[in-house]
Each structure stands twice: as C-alpha cells, then as structure tokens.
C-alpha cells in the first residue's frame, strides 16, 4: 500500500471559491441559530460581503496562471469569468434581497402554503421571506466559480450539480403564482437531471477514449484529453460520441436549441430576481465551461466539432428569434431573447483563436448587466396581483411611467444591438473574430436573426409609447434602494460598455489565454 500523497494546494488561487463556500455554510448556520426577524438583515450583507471579498481575491489573483490540486485551473479566462460571475451576482443579490417592492420579498418562506390564503398572508406579515435564499444563492455562486475553473470533466460535473441544485430549489419559491413556480422548478429539475446524465455518459466515453494513450495514464483532465485527441489509439467513435454528449450537457445549461425547451417555462415561472440571476450568471458559467472544454480539451478536433456546433448555433438563433416574435409574456419574450443570445455567444465560442474567446467573455458581461436591468424593470411593473408580465398590460406604460419606460426602451435597444449600447459592441466583439476566422455563414445567420429579433423588442417599445394606457395598465412600483441600485448599475454598464468599451475589451483580450 503506497502512502497517499496530498497535492500542494494554492489557497490564494482558490480563495474566491472558499470564501463563497464558507459564506454559504455560515448562512445555513444563521438560518439555524439567528432569530427569524434578524435573518434577512444579517444574511444579505453577509452574502454581499462574501461576494465582494471573493471579487477582491479575484483582483488580487489577477496575474496568477496556475493549476492547483490538479483540478482547478486559475488563469486569465477563469479570473475574468469569476470576476464577471461575482460582479453580476452582486447586482443579482440586490434584486434578490429587495423587500420594499413586495412585502417579504419575492421569495416565500413556506412554499407549501396556498398562495393568498390567510395563512399565506400571515406568513408574509410575520415570517418575512425565505432566508434560505441567501445560502442557496451563495452555494450556486460557489458552484459557478468552480465550474468555470474546473480543469477536468469530473470536477466540472460536480460543480454543475453544486450550482444547479440550489437553482432548482430557488425556482420553486416564488411568492406569487406559486404553482407555476413549482411546476417550473419541477421541469427544470427533471430536465436538468436528464441533461446531467448525458454529460456523465459522455464523460465515461471520453475516459474510455483516453485509455488509448500509450505513454500516460488515462483520465478526464483536459491536458490528458487534449493529448488523447492528438494521438489516442482508441476508437474515435468514443471521442466523438463522448464529445457530443458532454457538449449536450453544457448546451442544456447554456439554453441552446434544441436543448432550450426548459428555458421559457423556467424563466417565466421562477421568481423574477432569480430569473435575472440565471440569465446573467448561469449563462456566464455555462459558456465559461464550453469555452474551456472546446478551447482546451477538444482543441485538436476543432475542424470536426465546428460544423456541428455551428449548426446548433444557427438553430439556436433561429429558434430564439422566431419564437420571440409571437410571445405575449415579457418574461417569456426575454427567455427567447436569452436563447437567441446563446446562439450569438456560440458564434464567439466557435471563432478560432483568442479574439473569439475575449469577444465571448466581453459579450457575457455586457449581456449580463443588461438582462439584470431588464428583469429589474419587470419586477417593478406590477398591480395588486404582483408583476404584470402579460405584454398587453404594458400598453401605454410610457405615459404612466415615462422614466421606467425610457429605461426599458434603452435596455430593449441594447438587446437589439443599436450602436452606443453594449449590445452593439458585444455583437461586434463576437461577429468580427468569426468573420476573420472565415465563418461567414454564422455571422450572416447572426445578423439576419438579429433583424428578426429587433421586431419583438421594438413591438414592446411601440406598445409602451404609442398605445393609449388602458384601465389595465399597471402602475410601476416605487423601487426600493436595492432595486434602484441594481437598475442604475445595469443601465450604466450598458451605456458605458457601449460608449467606451475599450477598457473591458482590453482586459478581456489580455485575459484570453488558457493555462494548459
């Protein structure tokens, strides 16, 4: 029996992850021991503080390029994406923690109580909102941080589960329209488990493929896979089937067609702040993993996976834009918009070289801030029954609440990719390297679907400004300080990244180099 040799651990490099995990555990303890009414005032600052501390550590680590414990790669893309996840999470936490717009917040403490029943009202009065939201969110953030830094498929899989499980739970906690919310959580969980199985199966096949390496041990870390792609003696069927299945698992999280089917239902059913969190942070995590897997592990098979994933990208863009045209619910509309954006991001993933990588990373940040601001506005447009998400209810909003209608118009224009917004710069950042890389067909599809997609966005703008407000036009709630802050940050980022994108683009391109 050989002695187990522990690998050296670079604690500084994994500090952001550790901070988030510790914060999550502390959060659980707070739920257990702190009196009920103090939980929210303690949990929210704790979560925010943890996110800021982790962000600080990411900044401190800025120049680190290391693989620690063999499974965590801390390099430029990791740090950039971790920073993005943390920054977006901070904004999302502000939305999650808002309690001024709705009594007790958007999350219900005891989801099993019938909505709007006397018990329910009583729990809103007394019990406040669910405090578990914060540890769950911090767990999810920690999982995402691991996900984008994982250096082997197994770690990646575990991280996937770590951030997915809390999200399934959180989805079910909506205070209003609770059955819809629980149905969404159920669907998300079932399909998520289903997709995880694909991922795991692919992982096994890849492991088998690496066994064909003569001179080194088989394994699922990316360096080994990379070497195996170059010169494994095993059947390439293993590689391609495995690569396909792993890709499916990741594309599911990224909401790419045809693995997007869960997205509209879940985005619609989940509490809106959480939808914003998923649209911004899950997207960063999923694409971070996709970038690493396809740029590091399967780099050698680029010519083989590009046509297939390209077809997926085109299909995703088509599905997202075409379905968005006839949507009547603002959250579903944004869900399809998020699907189409996954298609644009895939164009960036498939663009060869570091320009594609940096462009994708820029796009993720730009899109994340805009989509958070969009969902922040959605939380504010409400009537007595909660959020009024049906589009007909938004008619004439420009006359009732010109400020929020203007902000939302700006956000929609950013989604549509109008210049001077981050949406435009993001599209340039992913389409330009794809053009340079010769993938003209992807860019043509991207531009055409962008035009189609502009229609539903502008339809909302027309609806808000040119329709007369009816009796059913809801008022816009006065946002609390937290939502205001989130909204201001999101809109400012959208504007600044559209007008002066150079610093972030420079940062992204200086970070665009994987450690192998």
């Amino acid at each position: 029996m050989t002695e187990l040799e522990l690998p050296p651990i670079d604690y500084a490099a994994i500090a952001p992850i550790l901070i988030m995990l510790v914060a999550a555990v502390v959060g659980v303890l707070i739920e257990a021991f702190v009196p009920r009414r103090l939980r929210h005032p303690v949990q929210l600052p704790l979560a925010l503080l943890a996110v800021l501390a982790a962000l600080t550590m990411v900044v401190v680590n800025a120049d680190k390029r290391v693989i620690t414990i063999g499974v965590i790669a801390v390099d430029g893309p990791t740090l950039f994406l971790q920073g993005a996840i943390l920054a977006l999470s901070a904004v999302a936490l502000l939305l999650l923690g808002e309690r001024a717009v709705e009594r007790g917040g958007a999350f219900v403490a005891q989801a099993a109580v019938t909505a709007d029943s006397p018990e329910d009202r009583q729990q809103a009065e007394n019990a406040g909102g669910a405090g578990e939201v914060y540890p769950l969110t911090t767990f999810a953030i920690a999982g995402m941080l691991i996900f984008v830094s994982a250096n082997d498929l197994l770690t990646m899989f575990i991280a996937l589960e770590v951030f997915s499980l809390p999200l399934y739970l959180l989805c079910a906690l909506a205070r209003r329209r609770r059955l819809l919310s629980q149905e969404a959580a159920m669907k998300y969980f079932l399909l998520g488990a289903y997709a995880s199985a694909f991922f795991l199966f692919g992982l096994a096949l890849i492991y088998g493929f690496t066994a064909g390496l003569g001179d080194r041990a088989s394994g699922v870390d990316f360096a080994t896979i990379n070497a195996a792609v170059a010169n494994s003696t095993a059947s390439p069927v293993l590689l391609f089937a495995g690569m396909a299945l792993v890709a499916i698992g990741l594309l599911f999280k990224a909401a790419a067609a045809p693995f997007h089917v869960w997205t509209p239902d879940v985005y619609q059913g989940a509490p809106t702040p959480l939808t914003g969190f998923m649209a911004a942070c899950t997207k960063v995590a999923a694409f971070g993993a996709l970038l690493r897997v396809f740029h590091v592990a399967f780099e050698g098979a680029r010519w083989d996976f590009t046509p297939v994933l390209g077809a997926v990208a085109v299909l995703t863009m088509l599905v997202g834009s075409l379905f968005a045209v006839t949507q009547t619910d603002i959250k579903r509309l944004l869900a399809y918009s998020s699907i189409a954006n996954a298609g644009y991001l895939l164009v960036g993933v498939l663009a060869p070289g570091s320009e594609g990588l940096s462009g994708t990373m820029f796009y993720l940040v730009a899109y994340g801030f805009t989509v958070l601001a969009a969902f922040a506005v959605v939380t504010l447009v409400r009537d007595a029954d909660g959020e009024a998400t049906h589009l007909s209810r938004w008619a004439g909003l420009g006359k009732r609440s010109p400020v929020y209608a203007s902000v939302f118009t700006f956000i929609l224009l950013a989604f549509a990719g109008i210049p001077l917004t981050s949406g435009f710069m993001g599209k340039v950042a992913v389409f330009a390297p794809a053009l340079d890389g010769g993938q003209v067909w992807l860019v043509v599809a991207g531009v055409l679907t962008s035009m189609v997609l502009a229609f539903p966005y502008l339809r909302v703008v027309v609806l808000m400004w040119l329709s007369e407000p009816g009796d059913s036009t809801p008022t816009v709630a006065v946002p609390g300080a937290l939502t205001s802050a989130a909204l201001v940050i999101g809109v400012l980022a959208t504007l600044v990244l559209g007008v002066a994108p150079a610093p972030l683009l420079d940062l992204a391109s200086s970070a665009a180099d994987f450690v192998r």
Partner: protein
Amino acid sequence: MDEILTYAQAAPAGTVSYATADGLLSSVWLLVAIPLVSATILLLLGRRADRWGHWLGVAAVGAAFLLGLSYFLGLRGLENRSVELSLWDFIAVGGLHVDFGLLFDPLAGVFVLLITGVGFLIHLYAVEYMAHDERRRLFFAYFNLFVAAMLLLVLGNNYVMLYFGWEGVGLASYLLINFWYTKPAAATAGKKAFLMNRVGDAGLAIAIFIMFATLGTTQYDEVFNGVGALAGGTVLVLGLLLLLGAAGKSGQFPLQAWLPDAMEGPTPVSALIHAATMVTAGVYLIARSNIIFSANSTLQLVVVSVGALTLLLGAIIGCAKDDIKRVLAWSTVSQIGYMFLGVGLGGAAYALAIVHLLAHGFFKANMFLGAGSVMHGMKDQVDIRRFGGLAKYMKITWLTFGAGWLAIIGLFPFSGFFSKEPIIVEAFARDDWTAWLFGGAALLGAGLTAFYMTRLFVLTFHGPKRWTEDIEHPHESPALMTIPLILLGIGSLGAGWLLATSVPDWLTTTAGLGAQVEGHEAVLSHFAITVIATLVTVLGVALGWFLFRNGTATEPQPAGVLVTAARKNLYTDTVNEAVFEKPGIFLTRALVYLDNRGIDGLVNGLAAGIGGGSGRLRRLQTGFVRSYAASILTGALLVVAAFLAVQAGWLA
C-alpha cells in the same frame, strides 16, 4: 497708391498666400459672434426681451459696423492685405481637413462694410416699421441671425465655411420671407424660395465635393493654387456647379422665380436680404472664385450669357408689373444680371461688378425702404396704379426715392453712371461678334431700366391721385424711418463716384482680382458708348414720363403679346411648372405607389410570414416535460449522429 500697384503686379505671378491675423485683426471673429450672440439672446429670452429686444438687435449690428470699419482701416497699413484667422479644426476626418477659419481681405472688407453699414440703417428703419408687430423681437432675432450668417459667408477662408454661411442666410431668408406665416402667399413664397435655393445649394455642395475629390482641400488658397493643375473638363464642371449655386442664391436664370415672390416678407427684409446683401452672395461667390472662372473661357461665356439673359428678362418683366415691390424685385434680378455680366467678363470687370454691387446695395435698399415708407403711409397698398401724386404728401420719401431713381438709371453724375456704364463698356470690349451681342443687351437693358423705373417713380409720386377710397391723407413716415432713408439717399447719389474711383484699386490685392490682363480694344470708343448709353437712358425716361405723366388705368388693360408675356413673367413659371413640377408630382406619386405596393408589400409579407411561422412553431412548446425530454433526446441523437457522421467523413 504706388505701393499697392507695385504689390498688385507682384501678386499674379506668385501663388496665393494669406498672412496670419494678429493685433486688432485677430479679433475679427467678433464680427460674426456679436450678431450671433444677440440673436441667441433674443431667441432664448423670448417674451422677456420684447421691450428692449429690437434695440439690442440694432446695437449688435451697429457694433459690428464699427468693428468692421476699424478692421477695414487696419487692413490699409498691411503689406499682405489678406489676413487669415484660423480658429479651430472644424472637420478633420481622414484626408479631409476643414478649418474653422476666417479670411479678412479687401473683398471681404467691402462686403463687411456693406452688410453692417446698410444693415444697420435697415435695422434702424425696421424698429419703427415693425413697431406694430407683436413679434418684433423675433423679427430682430432672425435679422441678427441673418447678419451673422452673411458675415460668416463672406469671411470664411474656405468653401465649407462659405457653405455654412450660405445655408445660414438661406435659413434666415426662409424664416423672414414667411415671417407673416399666417398669410398663405407668404408661406408659399417661403417654401418656393427654400426649394429653389435647394437646387442651387445642391450644385454648390457638389462643387465642394469635387474640390475635395480632385484637390483634396476646400481652403481658398490651396484650391486657387491647385486649380491650374486640373483638367479643363473638371474646371468647367466645377465652375458650372458653382454658377448653379450662385444663380440659385442670386435669383439668376433659370432659378430667378423665387426672388420676386420673396417680397411677401416684411419690407426691411426685402431691402436687406433680397436687394442689398444676400442675393449678391452669388456675385461674391464668383468674384471670390475668379481664379476658377478665369481658368476656362467657356465658363466665362456661360456666366456672361446668364447675366445678359437675366438682365433683359428682369427688365422686361419689370416693365409690366404693378406691385411696387415686385417691380423693384425684378429690377434687382436685372441689376444682378449686370453684375453677373461683369464677373463673367473677367479681368478688370470683376472689380466693376463689385462696385456696381456696392452701389446697388445703397440705392436698391434706399428704394425698397422708400417703397416701405409709401406702403406705411398708404395702408399697405402696393399697387402703383392706386398711388399718384404722393410727392406733395411724402416730401422726404419722394426726394430719397428720386435719388435712388437717378442712381439706378445711370445718368451723369449719379451713382449708376459710374458703376453700370463701365460694365457696358467692358461688354463691348470683346474680340468677336459677341461684343455686339452682350454690349447690345447691356445697352437695351439700360434703356428698359430707365423706362420701368421712370414708370414706377412717376406713377407713385406724380400724376393724378388714384387712391382707394379709404385713404384720405397719406402721411410721411416718422423720423426713425426717414433718417435711414436720407442717409441711404445721400449714399445713392454719391457712392458711385466714390466707389468707382477707389474700390478697383483697393481690390487689386484680393487673390486673382489683381491679375488683370490688358483689356481688349472696345469695338466702339469709350466716349461713343457713353453717349449712346446716355441717349438710350434719356429715351427710356422720356418714354416713361410721356406715357405715364397722366396716370394710368386702375385695372389691367388688354395688351399685346409681349406685355401679356411680361405680365406672366415671360412664361418662366409656366415652363417650370410643365417641366419640373408636373413630372415631379407624377414621379412622387409613382414612387409612393411603388413604396406602398412593392416595398411595403414585400416587407409586410415577410413580417407576416415570420409571424405566422412563429405562431405555428409556438405550438411545439407544449408545456409537457415528456415532450421536452423527447425533444432533447431527439436533439441529442441528432448531435451525436452528426458528430459520428463527421468522424466517418460523411460531411466532408
């Protein structure tokens, strides 16, 4: 004087170069800034400035005049009398570099004095003339805006700056023509002026584009130095486009129709913008670009032809009009025709055209203001058939208008004799049969001018009273109106001699204007032409006096072919309507039809297709997890199959 001549001889040989402005002249930008600031204040303060706004407007132009005068005097002592002041980079894009710069040279100097000097008097006059209009403050704001734009036009040191001012005066002119926009005639006239000017402006804009495309610059000095290297065809096209711009702004054939209609504006506007200054911008443009025009003899021939044709056209139509302001307007068209004739002849005649321009600025402004004074006293009546015998009631107006009349018909020793006569002489100084053609036209024009101006003068101030019933006792205008009239009247009488003896020498140092080749020998002697011209003029006056000394019918009388044609503006409007308006309307309708049916149909069809497709596709999203899972499975199978197909090389 000797020094100037020495310098003048040195200049043509070398290249065009401008000195940098320093000292007093470095503040030349104030000329544009002061009226502009005043206009801004008047526009921004709105009604709060109603009580004193007009005085601010007058003061701004007065200050600009004093400044202009001191710059003008400052210029005398300089060796290079063309000073440039570059303020900042206006446009710097790639190869295009446009300076926001000003050029103060003798040519710009005399224009500045004309614009601010005559402008000041007309502003003063307008204080009283517009006194009963509750929007007087706004009127002065626009008026100041005009002065600022006009000064920018003549002070720019490149064609883009000129264009800037050019559009500025166009805007001010549009705003002021339909200042009384509730009157349909005024609104229509404003629109007409705007549209016809667009045609000319497009020509000017394309000319500037050509300059940039072929020479890479729009700065005056660089363009003038580079124009010699251009192909003859390019220079011709460039010049024709500049001429189109000039014709639009100056109401020359074929773009003359807007100018008489522009008289719908308040009379001070007609006097300042549509007689003395803005409409002469075309002459300025050609005089400024004289190096381009002198470079191509075909071009000069075209300019001369336009001038000769327009001067006859304006004079003939002027004979048949009964509206006091329209007669003066057609007279303006005709007189600017003389100026175009002058600048087209080239050489020494450039300076003569400028002299005529300045003299005309005085006497035409004087007569317009006189007409305004008459209208003021006659309850806004403009029909000269309903005037008569006003000399007794409006002594000052009669005298000053008489001064203008003597000046324009050009009898010795009055203004026109010194400014118009030399142009006629130059027209005869060509070396082929065209000398007789253009000389004859200029002579005939002089006779016609004498006739219609005498008709106007006699019908208005002499002969029996033919007033409408509501007028009992016409009154002379108040002092604020008569003082400018008197000053301008004195200017009308004396300016000609003064200008003719000083301005040509003064202008020799302006780029190109000093490059005078020795003129051809005139086909007739100078003395003979003078005698003939005087005879023709006296004939015209005598005819006018003889026909109209006893007044005229108050209603239109049946007339022969020529008079009917002249009453209908020689059918130029009819031609415009048939050639441009009708096909234009048809084209617009056809395009609208095409847009509605073709393009919109395509777009709407596409949108409907996408919408319908989307509606059908939506049904795929059933809401059942089982169907979602099935769809994921199908997708997964397809993706795996595709990967395996790639691996097997089927897709290669």
